[in-house]
C-alpha cells in the first residue's frame, strides 16, 4: 500500500475540479419524460424482452405507484419529480451486433477521457469490463476468454435474451421488486446493467468490472446487476461510476443482487464518483442504491466501497448470512464535502450457525456536509455462535460538517458475540502544524492524514482501484481546510 501512497499521486493530479464533468455530444435515442405503464412497456419492447420480463416490470411498477419515498434517512433534498425524468436514453450509434472495433469514435474518445479506453482495457491486466453509458451496455471486453471457463459476463439485456432461464431463476430473489421504493422503481424501468455467472468450482481468472456513466441530461440511470457465484467459485467484481457536471439533480437508482452458493466467494468493490454538485450545493447525482447479497453454506461476500461522489447517497450494501459458517464483510470509506449528504452503511443478517460479519466504516466529512453511518446487525434465533465486529470511525474537517452514527443491533440468540467500536476525531491544527514543520504543506498533510485514516479499507481494494480511490480522496477534499 505504501508503495504508491505519496510518490505518484501528486503528479497524476492534474485537474482540481470534478475531473469527469464533461459531456460527450453523441446522438442519443431518448424517451420522452414521464413514467407510466406505456413507458415501462416501451422500455421492455425496446429491449426486445420476453413477455415474462415485461410482466415482471409492470408488477414492479404497479407496486411502486402504491409506495412512498422513504424519509427516514438523515438526508434532506428536494424529492425528485419522477414525471420529469426520461427513463431511457441510449447512445444512438450503438448496434448490439457490432464488435468493439466498430464503436462510435466519439464514444471511444469519451472512454479515453474517463481513462478506460477499450484499447487500454485490452492491455490492462486481467480486467474484463462492461461499460454502461446512460442506459445501455456498450461493450463487454474479454467475453471470449471468460466463456472458455464457462463464465457468463454480459449486459443484463443480453442475458435476458441469451440466458433467460438463469435470469428468471435469480432476478429479484435477493432484492424483490417490492423491497423498497427505489428498488421497485428500478425493477420497473431498469434499462441495463451487468449479469455474471460463475460456474461451479471456477475461480474467475480476472477482475470483472462494470463502468457506469450518466451522459445525457434529464435522464435517470437505473442499472441492475445480478451476479451468481455457483458452488465453490470465486469472483472479484469492480464497479466505477461517473457523471457530467450539471446544474440539475440526476437520479441514479440501482439494484445489485449477489448470490454466493455453498463455498463460493464474491468480492464486490465500488468506487462511486458521481458528480457531487458544485461548491454551493447546486446539482449533483441522487444515488439511491439497493445492494444485497445472499451467502449459502461456507460462502463469503465482501463489499468494499469508496464513496466520494453524489449530492445525496442512500446506500446499504448488505449480506444475508443464510448458510452455516458464512461470512459477510463490509468495508467502506465515505467522503462528503461542501453540501454533500451521505447516509450509508450495511445490514448483516445472521441466520445460519457460526456466521461471522465484519464492518469497518470510515466516514470523512468536510465543508458543510453531513455524513451518516447506519448499520444493522441482526442475529436470528437459530444463528448459534454468530459473531460480529463493527468499527465506525469518523473524521471531521472544519467546524461546519457533521458525522453521525446509527448502529442498530438486534440479537435473538444468546450465544451471539457482537462488538461495536466507534471513534470520532478531527484533523487538528496541531497535526497540520506538525506536518508543516516537517516541510509538508497543508494540502499534502490532509491527504496523508486521510489516507492513514482510510488505510484499513483502502487495503481491501484491488490494486488498480486502490490507486484511483486514493486520488479521488485527495481530489474530493481539496480546499476543504482553510
Amino acid at each position, binding site marked *: 500500500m505504501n508503495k504508491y501512497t*505519496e510518490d505518484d499521486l501528486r503528479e497524476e493530479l492534474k485537474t482540481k475540479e470534478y475531473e469527469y464533468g464533461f459531456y460527450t455530444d453523441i446522438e442519443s435515442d431518448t424517451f420522452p419524460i414521464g413514467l407510466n405503464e406505456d413507458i415501462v412497456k416501451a422500455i421492455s419492447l425496446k429491449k426486445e424482452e420476453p413477455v415474462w420480463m415485461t410482466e415482471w416490470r409492470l408488477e414492479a411498477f404497479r407496486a411502486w405507484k402504491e409506495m412512498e419515498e422513504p424519509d427516514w434517512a438523515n438526508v434532506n433534498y428536494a424529492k425528485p419529480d419522477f414525471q420529469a425524468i426520461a427513463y431511457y436514453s441510449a447512445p444512438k450509434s450503438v448496434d448490439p451486433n457490432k464488435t468493439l472495433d466498430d464503436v462510435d469514435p466519439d464514444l471511444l474518445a469519451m472512454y479515453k477521457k474517463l481513462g478506460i479506453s477499450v484499447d487500454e482495457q485490452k492491455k490492462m491486466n486481467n480486467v474484463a469490463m462492461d461499460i454502461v453509458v446512460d442506459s445501455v451496455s456498450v461493450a463487454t471486453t474479454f467475453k471470449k476468454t471468460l466463456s472458455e471457463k464457462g463464465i457468463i459476463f454480459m449486459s443484463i439485456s443480453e442475458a435476458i435474451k441469451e440466458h433467460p432461464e438463469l435470469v428468471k431463476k435469480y432476478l429479484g430473489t435477493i432484492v424483490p421488486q417490492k423491497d423498497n421504493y427505489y428498488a421497485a422503481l428500478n425493477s420497473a424501468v431498469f434499462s441495463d446493467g451487468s449479469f455474471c455467472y460463475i460456474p461451479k468450482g471456477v475461480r474467475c481468472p480476472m477482475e470483472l468490472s462494470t463502468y457506469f456513466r450518466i451522459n445525457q441530461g434529464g435522464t435517470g440511470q437505473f442499472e441492475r446487476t445480478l451476479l451468481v457465484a455457483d458452488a465453490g467459485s470465486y469472483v472479484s467484481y469492480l464497479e466505477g461510476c461517473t457523471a457530467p457536471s450539471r446544474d440539475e439533480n440526476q437520479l441514479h437508482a440501482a439494484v445489485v443482487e449477489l448470490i454466493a452458493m455453498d463455498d463460493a466467494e464474491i468480492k464486490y468493490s465500488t468506487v462511486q464518483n458521481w458528480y457531487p454538485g458544485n461548491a454551493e450545493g447546486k446539482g449533483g447525482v441522487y444515488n439511491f442504491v439497493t445492494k444485497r447479497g445472499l451467502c449459502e453454506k461456507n460462502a463469503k461476500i465482501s463489499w468494499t466501497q469508496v464513496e466520494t461522489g453524489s449530492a445525496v447517497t442512500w446506500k446499504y450494501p448488505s449480506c444475508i448470512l443464510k448458510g452455516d459458517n458464512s461470512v459477510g464483510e463490509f468495508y467502506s470509506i465515505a467522503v462528503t464535502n461542501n453540501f454533500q449528504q451521505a447516509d450509508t452503511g450495511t445490514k448483516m443478517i445472521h441466520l445460519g450457525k457460526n456466521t461471522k460479519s465484519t464492518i469497518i466504516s470510515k466516514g470523512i466529512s468536510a465543508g458543510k456536509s453531513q455524513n451518516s453511518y447506519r448499520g444493522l446487525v441482526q442475529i436470528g434465533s437459530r444463528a448459534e455462535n454468530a459473531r460480529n465486529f463493527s468499527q465506525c470511525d469518523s473524521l471531521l474537517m472544519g467546524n461546519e460538517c457533521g458525522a453521525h452514527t446509527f448502529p442498530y443491533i438486534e440479537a435473538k440468540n444468546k450465544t451471539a458475540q457482537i462488538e461495536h467500536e466507534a471513534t470520532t476525531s478531527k484533523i487538528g491544527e496541531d497535526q497540520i502544524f*506538525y506536518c*508543516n*514543520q*516537517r*516541510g*509538508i504543506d497543508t494540502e499534502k498533510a490532509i491527504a*496523508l492524514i486521510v489516507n*492513514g485514516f482510510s*488505510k484499513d479499507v483502502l487495503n481491501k481494494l484491488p490494486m488498480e482501484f486502490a490507486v484511483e480511490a486514493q486520488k479521488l480522496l485527495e481530489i474530493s477534499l481539496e480546499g476543504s481546510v482553510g
Partner: protein
Amino acid sequence: MLKINNLHASVEDKAILKGINLEVKAGEVHAIMGPNGSGKSTLSSVIAGKEEYEVTDGEIFFDEENIEELSAEERAHKGIFLSFQYPVEIPGVSVTNFIKTAINETRKAKGLPDMPANEMLKLIREKSELLEIDRKFLSRSLNQGFSGGEKKRNEIFQMAMLEPKLAILDETDSGLDIDALRIVASGVNKLKSKDNAVVLITHYQRLLDYIVPDFVHVLYNGRIVKSGGKELAHELEEKGYDWIKEEVNA
C-alpha cells in the same frame, strides 16, 4: 545562522515574548532555560512559524533572510527543525511513510526529484542504527501508542533524516528515563557539526550533562534575563530560579 532582534509575540492578544534578542552561529549549541510559563515553548513555535502566534514587533533572520513572511513548511525547507515537546499522532501513517513524504516534499521545494527508493532505504537504515531504533518501530503508525521515550527518539530520528541546519529541541528530555535520555543525547551529539546549530529548550539541567551547551540563556517573563556559559546551568540547578526572579524584579 539565527538572529533574533527585539522579538515580541503574542497569542490571542496576550503578550508572551517581550523583546527577545538571540544570536546562534553555526557549530554552536545554545540552551534556553527558564521556569514554567516563561515563554520557552512559544519562542520555539514562533521560530518554526506556527500561525497562532502573532509577531507584534522585532525580526527573525535565518541565514540573513527575514523569515517573517515564510510559512512553517517554507521555514522547514530552509533547514529549521523543531523537535516537539508533544509530538502528535497520525494514525495509519507509518514512521517510514511520514519521513519519506517529508524528505520528498522538501526536495520538491528545492526543485529536486524524489529520492530514489534504494537511497531512501539506505538512509533510513543508517539513521535508525545511529539511534538504536528497531526496524519494526518504523512500520508503526506515527507516534500512536508510542512511549514518551519512543516519541522523542522518533523526533531525533526525523531530525537525523532531514539533516536541518538549525535544530530546536523543545523539552526533549521530558518524559525520558535515563537510558532513553542517553540514547537521544548521543544521537544529537553525533549529528552535531560545525555547519549546524542546536537550540535546547529545557527546564532542567540534566539534559545538559549529555549535550553540553556553549551558551546558556535564562528566559523569564518573555525576556532573556541572563546569559552565560554552561556553568550557569549548574548554578540554576543548585539554586533554582528564584534568585533570577529576585534579580529581575529588584
